[in-house]
């Protein structure tokens, strides 16, 4: 299993900073989304943005979104091309985009691995339909992970900060998510059907039902406890999703610097080493830069 820093995907390749992120087509940039998704086969702003950044031509596509097209798609100069990670929120077209281009598909929410399951299960079913191998390194999920000496101490140390995050910091205006044209008709149909059938309650709705520490743990929003507890649950989570990349969220809400350092250190020393061999039978090379694949001794 690979563990990466959450929130910022930034790697250094031969001195060229490669920033991979949803800059061009984020829901918070609805202007870029008006006009609808681009049809298959057309230059895709996700990749174009990444590739443009690889060429260090940062200004050309920055913030352009789907509403602006360049005359010619930028071309990659690195060989082999660096891995590309594509964040997605369950749109069917993004599954296909990642799978057919051998890109990583990252479902990055604050709602944890159980909530991620419906999206990632759908991703793997689509992989089967397209005849793509279920390589766990082709997907990622985000997860709050909070480690302390014991389960009870984890609660004592982190509960206040976790509740601060979920109660105070999650006020994202839903208009950013539902801007007209952000989802294709096909994906809108898919999401609406699941919602009306009751098989897909939004993470926001679940939070409204009054989640506390126990509920957040039970629902998988957070994985918290002693190193043993976290190791077991994180491995089970990864295996249940068939996902080998965890975008770790080690700082939560109002947690201070010292506590975050403690969490990071405990994770790195007590949890991460035990998980290195999980999914080691799979090839990570299409989805990780070659230079980062050396495991430090």
């Amino acid at each position, binding site marked *: 299993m690979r563990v990466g820093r959450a929130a910022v995907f930034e790697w250094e390749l031969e001195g060229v900073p490669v920033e991979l992120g949803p800059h061009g087509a984020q829901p918070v940039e609805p202007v870029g989304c008006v006009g*609808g998704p681009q049809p298959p086969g057309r230059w895709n702003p996700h990749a174009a943005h990444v590739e443009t950044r690889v060429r260090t031509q940062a200004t050309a596509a920055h913030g352009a979104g789907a509403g602006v097209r360049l005359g010619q798609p930028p071309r990659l100069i690195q060989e082999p091309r660096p891995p590309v990670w594509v964040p997605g929120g369950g749109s069917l077209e993004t599954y296909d985009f990642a799978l057919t281009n051998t890109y990583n598909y990252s479902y990055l929410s604050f709602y944890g691995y159980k909530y991620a399951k419906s999206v990632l299960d759908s991703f793997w079913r689509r992989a089967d339909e397209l005849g793509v191998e279920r390589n766990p390194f082709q997907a990622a999920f985000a997860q709050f992970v909070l480690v302390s000496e014991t389960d009870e101490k984890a609660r004592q140390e982190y509960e206040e900060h976790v509740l601060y995050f979920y109660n105070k910091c999650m006020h994202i205006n839903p208009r950013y998510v539902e801007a007209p044209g952000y989802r294709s008709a096909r994906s809108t149909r898919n999401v609406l059907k699941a919602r009306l059938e009751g098989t897909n309650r939004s993470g926001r709705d679940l939070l409204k039902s009054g989640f506390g520490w126990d509920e957040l743990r039970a629902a998988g929003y957070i994985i918290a406890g002693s190193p043993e507890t976290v190791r077991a649950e994180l491995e089970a989570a990864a295996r249940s999703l068939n996902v080998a990349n965890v975008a770790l969220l080690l700082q939560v809400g109002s947690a201070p610097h010292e506590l975050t350092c403690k969490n990071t250190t405990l994770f790195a020393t007590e949890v991460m080493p035990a998980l290195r061999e999980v999914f080691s039978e799979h090839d990570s090379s299409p989805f990780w830069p070659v230079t980062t694949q050396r495991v430090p001794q």
Partner: protein
Amino acid sequence: MTAPTVTQVRANERVDFSVRVHGSGPGLLYLHGFGGLACGDFLDLLGRSHTVYAPEMPGVGGSTGLDEVRSTWELALAYHDLLQLLDLPEVAVVGHSVGGMIAAELAALWPSSVNRLALVSPMGLFVESSPGDDPFALLPTEWCQFFADQDSTVARRFADPDGSIDERVTLLVDRATAAEAAAKFLFPIPDRGLSRRLYRVTAPTLLAAGGLDTFVPAGVVEAFRSGIPHAQVSTVPEAGHMLPLEEPVQLSKILDAFLGSVVPARHPAAEGGARA
């Protein structure tokens, strides 16, 4: 009443229209607004005196090509191509909301193709002193705000349709795609230069407005009236933006009276100088 038929028309190499046909009589082109063609009995009421051709906007329902239509000009061109293929060289055009903007574009760009123009709560003009509410800031669950009486059954059903799950999904997807199609030509500022072309409209024109419409407020209606030669205004005081759904009977009577009235001479200045 005869059930509507649906026909598919490839207008040009970019756009395929799904066209619903209601009623019988002289041809009439109806261009829908927010919500697509799900406007209750309104089209049947119009169809009592006209053969109503109601295409869905590109990207909505069975119509395709939204990605390929790059400008308001190309959008209007697709509708004009459609009129030729439907063998409607000169026709009455009724447009609601974003459909009103398209109708006005058609009448301005090809004055001789439109013999009557009825704009129902039309969008497409931006008046700084009277900007109106932003329709794209509404969540789908807030679409009842298009209606004057947001608690009415028709308003609540617009945001939360009844029926089977598949029927509800289809209606909501149609509404979402209609909003997307409208956004392409109205967002963020609903001004693609229509005000600079309105002088070319020669057709007798009716503006039908809801007195409580906060999306097309009185200032916008007045801008249309002053921009189109000899336009007349008919206001339904208690209605909001969704006149075809809120007041279908009253609106159809207003339109019947306008469409069936003696055709006055086209605006002389435009007649002489603005033939396409």
